[in-house]
């Protein structure tokens, strides 16, 4: 997938999540659910069958009472910038890397549901539709026309609310602009976050808030050793959280809660 970098584009969208600010309230998840036409099943406690594009992982430093601490790790799709694991494996090109925006797509009407990408993604950002999508009587009224609901038997994932980018572009076009201004296109999760922990924007625009944040010394990414170059950055001043972000030799694996 090295050809990504040869394309000259003024845009590359990314996300920064400040874990010092995140309180794990889950507003991002709900905003995502309602923005992206997710249906809800009566029992969602089986998390291995629960579609949450924006999943909030709960982690702990594992220290005994009263030194225990918990923290939260909101996890959208990382939109890996290099050797995007899911893109290279899909047999039918149902997912691709958009060189213009850096966004990794998923096309539900093309996907055959082989789930190879689900296995290839180390971030568990990809979900399969095990059931037919059903909305209780009346609930379908809140479906967002900009987003296509997924049918049973296909894989889905966070799209960085690409449809919002499409709409923002349209607006810019009728106003005679080609480029978007910072903040003109933000994801539903970033828009909702009550502590303003999520910053979304064009990393190639030096003036954008995100371009500054990713340079922060607190910045890190998940599983960097894999070399997938995620476009989702995290900020934390807590060393134990930063340590949980990647595997390291001689460190015991703990911290998972939910």
């Amino acid at each position, binding site marked *: 997938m090295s050809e990504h970098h040869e394309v000259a584009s003024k845009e590359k969208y990314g996300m920064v999540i400040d874990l010092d600010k995140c309180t794990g309230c889950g507003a991002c998840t709900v905003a995502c659910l309602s923005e992206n036409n997710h249906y809800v099943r009566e029992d969602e406690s089986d998390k291995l069958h629960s579609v949450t594009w924006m999943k909030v992982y709960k982690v702990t430093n594992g220290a005994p009472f009263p030194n225990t601490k918990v923290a939260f790790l909101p996890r959208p799709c990382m939109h890996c910038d290099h050797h995007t694991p899911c893109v290279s494996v899909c047999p039918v090109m149902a997912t691709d890397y958009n060189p213009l925006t850096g966004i990794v*797509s998923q096309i539900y009407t093309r996907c055959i549901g082989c789930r190879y990408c689900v296995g290839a993604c180390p971030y568990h950002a990809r979900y399969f539709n095990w059931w037919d999508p059903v909305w209780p009587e009346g609930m379908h009224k809140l479906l967002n026309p900009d987003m296509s609901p997924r049918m049973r038997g296909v894989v889905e994932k966070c799209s960085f609310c690409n449809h919002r980018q*499409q*709409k923002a572009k349209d607006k810019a076009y009728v*106003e005679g602009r*080609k480029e978007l201004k910072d903040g003109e296109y933000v994801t539903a999760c970033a828009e909702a976050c009550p502590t303003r922990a999520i910053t979304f924007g064009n990393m190639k625009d030096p003036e954008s808030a995100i371009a500054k944040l990713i340079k922060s010394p607190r910045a890190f990414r998940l599983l960097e050793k894999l070399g997938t170059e995620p476009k989702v950055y995290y900020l934390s001043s807590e060393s134990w959280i930063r340590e949980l972000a990647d595997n390291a030799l001689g460190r015991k694996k703990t911290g998972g809660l939910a």
Partner: protein
Amino acid sequence: MSEEHATSGGREGGHKQAGGGLGMLAAGFVVAIVVGWLLYPAIVMSSKPQPINFNHKVHGAEGAGLACDGCHTFREDGSFTGIPRLDNCIQCHESAQGESPDEAKLVEQYVTPNKEIPWLSYSYQPLCVFFSHAAHVKMAQLECTTCHEDMSKSSSSPPVKVYRISGYSKDTMSMEECEDCHAKKGTSNACFVCHK
């Protein structure tokens, strides 16, 4: 059945080869062609009449002198209105202007009860598609006629042919057409340019 019969049957066949055999082959072929090209479309597609037989000609250059974007406009948020809403028609057709039966129908069935006209779209795109008129018309400066047929000449709106199974219109532009043009123009064919 016994062995002999089967083998003799085989020889029989051998003799027949030259004659009716080929005829049957041809007959089968012809029947298939007829069914496939003439009968099949009528079966697989339903033909839906438009609620009103709209006359683009009288509205267009040679008539009322409206350009396409006189009625097919963009909204502030960049989205394209597509088929105009009733209020758009009302601007001129508050009451009948001429004698055309269709106009009469428009006034009494839709304008007066203020009911939206259930127009059928010839170029309906499925939900998974995001087609940006802004990008094509405003940015790329394409003519409407590049994709749509020149309506300024058409004086009637023929019924819409709809695939019974998929609900696609016969005139729905196929992805291949989009891709070819994008390729020619050097525009990206990445999925998320046109899909949602």
